């Protein structure tokens, strides 16, 4: 008996109306979710993030060389060649070399020579970037790929 009562409570028209509204909302939501992907293209229109930085022997030892036109510092130590991003991890300003490491002009973050934070608001150290070797022997730094600090390209 309760089954019959329930059928009466939600009538045929109510059910159809509910189904129609449900279908309408579902299709709208699906379309909207598709639309939400609009602001994020499959490929971001950035310039190439990889760039040559010179032959391994030309990289200075125990000092940093700013790669012209890129936000990259390269240097060489006993362990090998490494590259550090010059983009501050706080709010994206470009750090400048200082006697003790790097200073950020925007909000005063300070980093030591290995890119570790020593002061200011930066949440983490400067990114270390992946170094590879191109077929012609020059080294290539990829600004899009970070590596754990202390990763060297062995000479």
């Amino acid at each position, binding site marked *: 008996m309760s089954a019959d009562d329930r059928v009466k409570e939600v009538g045929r028209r109510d059910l159809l109306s509910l189904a129609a509204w449900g279908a309408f909302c579902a299709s709208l939501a699906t379309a909207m979710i598709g639309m939400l992907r609009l602001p*994020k293209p499959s490929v971001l229109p950035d310039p190439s993030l990889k760039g040559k930085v010179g032959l391994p022997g030309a990289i200075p030892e125990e000092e940093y060389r700013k790669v012209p036109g890129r936000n990259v510092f390269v240097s060489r130590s006993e362990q090998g060649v490494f590259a550090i991003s010059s983009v501050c991890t706080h709010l994206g300003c470009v750090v400048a070399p200082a006697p003790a490491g790097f200073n950020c002009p925007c909000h005063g973050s300070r980093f030591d020579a290995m890119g570790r934070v020593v002061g200011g608001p930066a*949440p983490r150290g400067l990114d270390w970037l992946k170094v590879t070797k191109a077929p012609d022997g020059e080294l290539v730094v990829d600004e899009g790929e970070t590596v754990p600090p202390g990763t060297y390209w062995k000479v």
Partner: protein
Amino acid sequence: MEAWKDYVASVKTLPRSVWDSLVRHGAPVTDRSRMETVLQNLFLHIHPTRVHRWSLRWSYSLGLGLICAASFLLLLVTGVLLMFYYKPSTVLAYQSIQDIHYVIPSGRFMRNIHRWGAHIMVVAVILHMARVFYTSSYKKPREMNWVFGLVLLVLTLGLSFSGYLLPWDQLAYWATTIGANIAQSPRELTDALGITPYFDPGGFQKTLLLGSRSVGEEALIRFYVLHIMVLPLLMVVFMGLHFWRIRKDGGLSRPEDADERLGPPGDDALPVFTQAQKKSYGLMAVVRGTSPTVGRGPENTVPAWPHLMTAEAAVFMFTLAITVALSFFFDAPLKEMANPLIPENPAKAPWYFLGLQEIVSFSAFAGGVLLPMLALIGLGLIPYLDREPGGVGYWLGGRDRDKRVFLQSAAFGLAAVIGLEAFAVRFGWLRDWFPGIPQIVITLFNPGTLLTFLYVAYSVWIIRRENSTRLGGIAIFTCLLAGFIILTLIGTYFRGPNWGFYWSPSHWPVH
């Protein structure tokens, strides 16, 4: 021949009949035609036909809401004019602004008005909010209109910020880079929890804003569309809601005894109901008992035409005069063309964000996302948490108690922010003492969050001490205003290269 005579008569009366078909009522010289002047005009009928004399008092509203609307109108007109010459592309944007500045007749003037109008609008919006708060005008039935006002505040700041990038100079580029990275700063939290690879709202927000990894062509066109289309449209919609609600909520707020306090109308007020009134409106809604005309005579209302119209025209002209005067003497800045490799030093956001930038210099997430969100939510909740009746329509309720708490709160708010800032400038902050400290600790404990905690604690204490939520509201709002002003002043005048503290730019090191 009859037809010919009619024809000649029609030609003779042509201007008159065209005018009469445009404006159906006569000249606004009687009460009825004054009413119809307002009521039958699409652009005027957002006004009431009659307005209470309290609403016309300069010392009450200070015309601040109208100044906001007037400056928005100025920005709309000059903005459209600038759009004829501005080219939203990274290659051409800077040159087109230079053209507007140096080549196009009166282009510089238009750009200056656009710049100064934006500053004036931000100032007026903030002052208007303070006026509404200190006269208790957010109280029932005006709660939702206070919230709409907050939406308008956010839209105003959004419009200012999105316009900041368009000149594509150094100032624009680096302020936007900082802004976009603030949008990314929830990573401070997700990094600390180690969930960034799976859940990255910060990165999503930055990509949404810039459409790229860094500020470039995509970012410029996004900011352009936001600035000239999306945000102005939203602005107009919410301004419409805001104005509509003023009328639906019973006009400008006023005290219960406004009629007695005002006394009889002066000689300059147009007489009231000089002739039999024609019913000029229908029953549009069932109003609550707080409606101004229920059970009370309309003695203290005057016709909106001309009283309200002349007052509005005066405010519009005042705004125009100030903006034009500033634009005549002070040019909008234009630095060197944007250079993604060399940041400005110091790189400063527009002045109304410098208070936040001051906190951002401790933690990007706390200063750029957490505290602004908390402040906005807190402000939005004020009318729902303080529901004490009374005191509406007077500055600080017209009570000595409120004035005392206001002064105490201002003193406490100023002392707390100056004390904390002085401490941080003199002794540094956590990372200067413990270099290895994790960022999450600084995100949670920095001068900004501590200040917020002090302010909230103080207002809770006031609620309990004075046994009044309204006084608690006065405490938190006044503290917030004091903090905002002091942090903005420090960020604007006392921060130099590397965000160091300097008493004057003349002490800045050479760099």
